């Protein structure tokens, strides 16, 4: 593609934007966005959550409202929702239990080494399912999910990802890719991960274009499929329009 206008690496609304609740784009807005993505990854159902905080998050989370922002995100609020301030009482109303755990000692997985602003969500959903999600706040409100249930991922919200857990067996991966192929969805990045002593495998797919819920349903029907999570591209412009 031949661009007519130079733009450099920042978009207009990276510089003037985002619209957010203060005080810090990395410690507040990014934290809220991470919480929101973690909630979506946990199928929008959170009964209990432990926030393990690393690096600068562990040090300054109170003053920057990182705790309120993470919790607000988990409750489904956006980084610009004024409700961020009242996240604690909101959680109480919705009966969501939460614990903040600043981690200052090195961990076995070394989460503290990924980025100075890192958080690990340990979520129990309404029906008892457990999710383990790790994300970093990169600055300027931008975020990246780096691990989902032990699988290393790279999700920033800019392109969709599909994560599946299935019984390990021949043909399953081919079945998934052929369903995507039928919808002309190209795969940008793919990783399969099988834990030792486990009969299940996790697959992580980064997609070049959006997929429909129908694709997810098709994949769900593949014999041996346990769980399918589709993370849609996050388009916040739509909900921004509702700000008065």
């Amino acid at each position, binding site marked *: 593609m031949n*661009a*007519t*206008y*130079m*733009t*450099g*690496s*920042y*978009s*207009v*609304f*990276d*510089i*003037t*934007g*985002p*619209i*957010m*609740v*203060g*005080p*810090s*784009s990395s410690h*507040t*807005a990014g934290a809220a966005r991470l919480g929101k993505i973690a909630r979506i990854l946990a199928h929008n159902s959170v009964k209990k959550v432990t926030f393990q905080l690393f690096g*600068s998050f562990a*040090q*300054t989370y*109170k*003053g*920057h*409202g990182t705790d*309120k922002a993470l919790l607000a995100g988990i409750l489904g609020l956006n980084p*610009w929702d*004024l409700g*961020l*301030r009242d996240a604690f009482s909101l959680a109480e109303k919705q009966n969501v239990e939460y614990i903040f755990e600043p981690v200052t000692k090195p961990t076995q997985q070394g989460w503290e080494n990924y980025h100075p602003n890192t958080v690990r969500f340990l979520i129990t959903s309404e029906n008892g399912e457990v999710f383990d999600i790790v994300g970093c706040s990169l*600055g*300027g*409100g931008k975020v990246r999910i780096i691990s989902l249930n032990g699988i290393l991922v790279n999700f920033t919200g800019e392109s969709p990802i599909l994560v599946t857990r299935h019984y390990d067996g021949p043909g399953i991966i081919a079945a998934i890719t052929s369903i995507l192929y039928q919808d002309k969805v190209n795969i940008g990045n793919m990783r399969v991960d099988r834990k030792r002593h486990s009969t299940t495998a996790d697959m992580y797919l980064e997609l070049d274009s959006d997929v429909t819920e129908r694709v997810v349903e098709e994949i769900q029907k593949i014999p041996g499929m346990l769980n399918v999570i589709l993370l849609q591209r996050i388009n916040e*412009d739509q909900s*921004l*329009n509702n*700000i008065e």
Partner: protein
Amino acid sequence: MAEFWMSEIIKECARQRISLAEYIIRGECENSGSTREQVIEKMGKMLDVMSSAANGGLEAPIRSNSGLTGGAAYQYHQYIGQGSSLLGTVMSSAVEMALSCSEVNAAMGRIVACPTAGSCGIVPAAVLSVGVSHQKSREDMVMALFVATGVGMVIGEHATLAGADGGCQAECGAAASMAAAAVVNLMGGSDEQALHGAAIALKNMLGLVCDPVCGLVEIPCIKRNAIGASTALVSADMALAGVQSYIPFDEVVTAMYAIGKQLPAELRETGRGGLAVTKTGLAMYETLFGTPMSL
């Protein structure tokens, strides 16, 4: 293709016979796939949020989330109301609006990061104080914001916009530079004049360190926003008079980055140098976190 420097962009604007604001808008359309209307409307949304933040702290005192600061915007607003201000209408309203935005930010209110949350008061204060007092249209103010954004994009590209990388010159300095360019544009100055304003403002902020007390975006950030806005207005005023920066904008950006690299980590947002480790700064830390800072 040429590099994303202002000198190159201005050449392209001349070749295509369009303004800097128009160039930035078209670049965004091409990049994001949005229409011109959508891009302009989204910037209008930014202006709306800026305007509520610029007024949110004036009518009643607000406290920060940490409890460390608050009430300055209200206090200053009262003082202007009594007719006591030494400054003219434009400058004094810029000061109160910058204080308001920054206090709203510290109180977990809604702001527009521009270019960062810590420096969120400077561009709104400069654009709105001039825009309101000179009865500029909403469209004019939105266009001025695109000029400011273009300046910020070049600073981000060739230097940095993060206090953690370049000190406060990268946040409040970049914001003052953006704001100066916006004001020149808003008052009908040329794009060349806008860049002189941007260069003059950034030159004045060179070397400014990032040393927030308790690591929080409050002390000295809130007052730096007020004075950053005044730097922008003074710089824009000179540029509008035809005064030029001897050092071109792009070269000032290069200097800013080099200076940022030379700053020790203590003075880059770690809260471990400068004002943060003064006797009072350390005492605030101990009160807030319950333990003395381990240095």
